[in-house]
């Protein structure tokens, strides 16, 4: 018996040329080669001949390489066999999907076009095959119908999981928007319960906050629990499920009756609960509370993935509750509104590292004698301050405004705004055409707010026309309103995005955080007006700001 029994490789590819090339190459290197021309044949031959490694093409008739790979990796009998995908599909998504199928490696077919490429393939094969004992696959080869049916089930399951995840992510995003708007602690907690209800299909649940003074948990919001019971519900650390979770700062997933769990068997269980999740809400190492979710019979119990998701949610919620407490306590001025939390949180997050950078640079400045490094340090300090100023502008913007309203001359506001950008606009060959009536009615607003909105629209128009174009600014009176129109000849906005552009954090640009139009819209709405937008791809976009006549 030879010391190293000859290793067998299965090559699956619908192209006879590719099969021959690989066969020739591999046999020269001393491997035994068996061939298949589609995914199903690849599976059948794997069962029939127990190869030590598979090389799979992706695009094949009857069954693609992805599915064949998934199938083989799912089955205990074949899951150990290493699989290399060899394909021309090299987009990021293809590679991701290929690796997701369970393949050990994902290579570009063009390595077959030259010597070094072949060497790469060979070394990968040797790496993967090394040390693996040839396993004889005993048992019946599944029929083609069986194979297809099993693959279908597999894919259906993956699809279901992906959809649920997508739905949850969508809801999380919605939640984050809501959380930025919420101010009161009670409102916040109620929002959290609503989200859990929506995302986790619960029958009852409670959000408990830790009372620091008494070191007890109190229900602050609940769902599916009688009001009276919820109000009186106070739990000590260590007491019951929630108390245990709070004390140990560990999550729990309970299914099928409390008597199964020695720790909690003594608790009188509400008989119709089939499954519970209880997770600690921890922000920065401190326990803020506990979130409890229950499902009743006969619903399927929560599973590991549910628990994982709720834990992610819990971290997020804990920090929202934490921030809420801090900002409510400290900021006694009027409610901060939509962006208050975000701006303050961001200011804090950004300015702390900035302070470190600046302080260290100043330290270097003190210690360093050399001119050049001293200069560098000064630049670092200066730029840090600049970033800080940008933050300050954003903060000021998000602060509740002092109403310093006056009668604003819109012509003048437009002129002032254009002055700010005239240089860069000319540079990018954008022609500004003004069609404004001499005696435009005035509006009651704060000049800086109006100018901010105008600036935002002009900048957006500018960015839509990188190669140049025209921006027409005109105005018309409509009943008791004035409409100021900004019309550009830029690339336009897709119809499906037209509603979303006013949402926070929506942007199709590489730069920027997508707050410009959101803020502009908020300002105009708060003045009693609105913004209309229409657009044609390739032709341009028109924004019309409607404001009530003032005075």
């Amino acid at each position, binding site marked *: 018996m030879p010391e190293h029994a000859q290793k067998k490789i299965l090559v699956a590819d619908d192209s006879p040329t590719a099969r021959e090339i690989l066969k020739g190459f591999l046999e020269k290197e001393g491997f035994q080669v068996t061939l298949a021309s589609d995914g199903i044949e690849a599976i059948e031959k794997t069962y029939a001949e127990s190869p030590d490694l598979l090389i799979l093409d992706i695009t094949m008739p009857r069954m693609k390489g992805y599915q064949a790979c998934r199938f083989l990796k799912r089955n205990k009998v074949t899951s150990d066999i290493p699989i290399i995908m060899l394909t021309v599909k090299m987009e990021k998504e293809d590679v991701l999907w290929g690796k997701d199928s369970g393949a050990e490696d994902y290579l570009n077919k063009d390595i077959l076009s030259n010597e070094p490429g072949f060497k790469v393939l060979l070394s990968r094969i040797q790496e993967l095959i090394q040390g693996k004992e040839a396993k004889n696959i005993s048992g019946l080869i599944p029929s083609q119908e069986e194979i297809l049916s099993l693959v279908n089930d597999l894919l259906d399951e993956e699809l279901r999981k992906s959809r649920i995840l997508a739905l949850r992510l969508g809801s999380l995003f919605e939640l984050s928007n809501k959380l930025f708007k919420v101010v009161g602690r009670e409102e916040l907690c109620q929002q959290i319960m609503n989200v859990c209800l929506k995302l986790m299909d619960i029958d009852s649940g409670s959000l408990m906050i830790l009372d620091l003074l008494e070191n007890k948990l109190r229900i602050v919001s609940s769902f599916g629990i009688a009001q009276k019971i919820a109000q009186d519900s106070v739990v000590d650390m260590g007491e019951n499920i929630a108390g245990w979770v709070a004390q140990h700062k560990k999550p729990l997933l309970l299914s099928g009756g409390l008597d199964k769990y020695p720790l909690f068997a003594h608790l009188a269980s509400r008989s119709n609960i089939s499954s519970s999740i209880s997770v600690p809400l921890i*922000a*920065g190492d*401190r326990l803020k509370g506990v979130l409890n979710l229950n499902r009743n019979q006969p619903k399927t119990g929560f599973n590991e993935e549910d628990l994982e998701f709720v834990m992610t949610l819990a971290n997020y919620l804990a920090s929202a509750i*934490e921030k809420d407490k*801090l900002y409510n*306590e*400290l*900021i*006694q*001025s009027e409610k901060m509104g939509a962006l208050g939390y975000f701006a*303050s949180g961001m*200011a*804090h997050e*950004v*300015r*702390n*590292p*900035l*302070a*470190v*950078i*600046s*302080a*260290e640079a*100043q*330290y270097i400045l*003190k210690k360093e004698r050399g001119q050049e490094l001293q200069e560098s340090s000064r630049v670092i*300090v200066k730029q*840090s*301050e600049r970033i*800080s100023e940008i933050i300050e502008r954003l*903060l000021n913007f998000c602060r509740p405004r002092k109403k310093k309203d006056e009668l604003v001359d819109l012509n003048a506001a437009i002129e002032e705004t254009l002055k700010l950008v005239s240089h860069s606009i000319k540079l990018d060959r954008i022609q500004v055409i003004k069609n404004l009536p001499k005696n435009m009615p005035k509006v009651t607003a704060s000049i800086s707010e109006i100018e901010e909105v105008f600036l935002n629209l002009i900048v957006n128009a500018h960015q839509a026309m990188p190669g140049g174009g025209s921006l027409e600014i005109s105005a018309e009176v409509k009943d008791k309103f004035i409409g100021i129109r900004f019309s550009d000849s830029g690339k336009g906005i897709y119809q499906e995005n037209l509603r979303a552009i006013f949402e926070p954090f929506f942007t199709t640009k590489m730069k920027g955080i997508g707050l410009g139009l959101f803020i502009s819209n908020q300002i105009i709405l708060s003045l009693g007006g609105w913004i209309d937008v229409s657009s044609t791809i390739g032709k341009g976009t028109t924004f019309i700001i409607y404001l009530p006549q003032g005075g």
Partner: protein
Amino acid sequence: MLVQKKILVVDDEPDICNSLRKYFRDKGYVVFTCCEAGAALDLLNKEKPDVLILDIFMPGLNGIEVLRIAKEINKDVKVIMLTAIKDEFIVKEALNLGASFYMTKPFNLDALEKVVSGGKGSVE
């Protein structure tokens, strides 16, 4: 007779504590640092610092609360508030409670040292 001045720095960002410790040690001060209120109160009692450089937005007890307690422990301690966000109300409250100065981050170390050493400065 040179008595070394004691400074206590309280900030939840450890690197800020380190930067300040480095800078002030070089200048001859004795520096203690910590990252939250509990430790701060301990150190205030134990070491009785002359100067307290205090961050405002911290988890747990915030800087305003620490300021209040610090003044109870030692009404003469000089307190400099250091923070990322300058809010009118917070500034007023801090000054009312006895803070000497208020600086926003990022800050100028020289200016900070002037304030610590007792030079006259204005609240930024």
